[in-house]
């Protein structure tokens, strides 16, 4: 099962500001909660989200334990050239998901 839903416009005009929306499946366990036996549940969160556009980083975000499960991240960037947008989530317990989408700039 794949993890993330991504929304990027298929085609945009050069110089146009456009929105990238992402939603990823993750439990974002804070590390502060106890289970039924009183034991702390170890932290399991996404720590970092980055977005590169044709290899250039255009957005990055550090996530904290206060962020709810299944984080929704949306941001804007400027259309420069046609190419690929790579989105990468990394976190505790070796969590790493990378998705790429292509975009056409007219």
């Amino acid at each position: 099962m794949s993890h993330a839903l991504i929304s990027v416009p298929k085609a945009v005009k050069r110089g146009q500001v456009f929105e990238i929306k992402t939603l990823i499946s993750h439990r974002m366990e804070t590390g502060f909660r106890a289970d039924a036996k009183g034991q702390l549940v170890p932290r399991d969160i996404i720590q970092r989200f980055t977005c590169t556009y044709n290899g250039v980083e255009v957005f990055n975000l550090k996530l904290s334990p206060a962020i709810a499960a299944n984080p929704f991240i949306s941001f804007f960037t400027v259309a420069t050239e046609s190419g690929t947008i790579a989105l990468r989530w990394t976190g505790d317990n070796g969590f790493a998901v990378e998705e790429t989408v292509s975009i056409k700039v007219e």
Partner: protein
Amino acid sequence: MSRRRVSAGLLRAAVCLGAALAAPLAAGQTPDGQRRSGYDDMSKSVQAMQDDDMANPGMLWVRDGEGLWNRRVGSADKACADCHAGIGSISGVAARYPAFEATLGRPIALEQRINLCRTNHQRTEPLGPESRELLALSAYVAQQSRGQPIAPPADPRLQPFIEGGEALYARRQGQLNLSCAQCHDDNSGRKLGSATIPQGHPSAYPIYRLEWQSLGSLKRRLRNCLIGMRAEPYDYGAQEYVDLELFLMSRARGMKLESPGVRP
């Protein structure tokens, strides 16, 4: 950028109930024209989250459900898609469940139908209650009926079970000695702690509840209410939940399905 953790629990809120019930009660149920989905009482931001499939976390389960729908499992090596010709063929199904199952002599909910298909046709283990896979499949099936009016079947065999559900709905239970009707008929639209009491229509299940940080079934919601009333929740397999669901669906007849809904 991200959703706030919602901490206020029904348990805590239920303590404030005494104050809410002190006002005079309007008896009886809400007339058809005044029925409101829980959606209508939510904040604009939560409504926006439900409306946008990219922001609605329930869609993560819908997408998992699509994968499961097409995956061959069991000793019969069959996928759901192998029997059900095209996902379009199950459009409207969620709007008419629970339905009467003749072999069992009682009505069953959509999740039970999915599990019956698994044991009878796919020849594999049934999925556990509230498991991610069962929620994913029911979310995928329910989403196919999105926008359609709730249409319980006109099956006379269902009538005694609907009446049973109605009796449960009206029965006081738990240490707080409350019935469903006291909150959801008599005091809907008013406040329970900081939350608006909804009319209790099952029009968006399974729902992504921010408090749960997960998708959950109507059964989970009913268990939450029972715990809030300080009553012992029925076991997951209990017929009481199906009867209640049946009554609630007949009470919500004609309202539009929103599945998968988002609730605070």
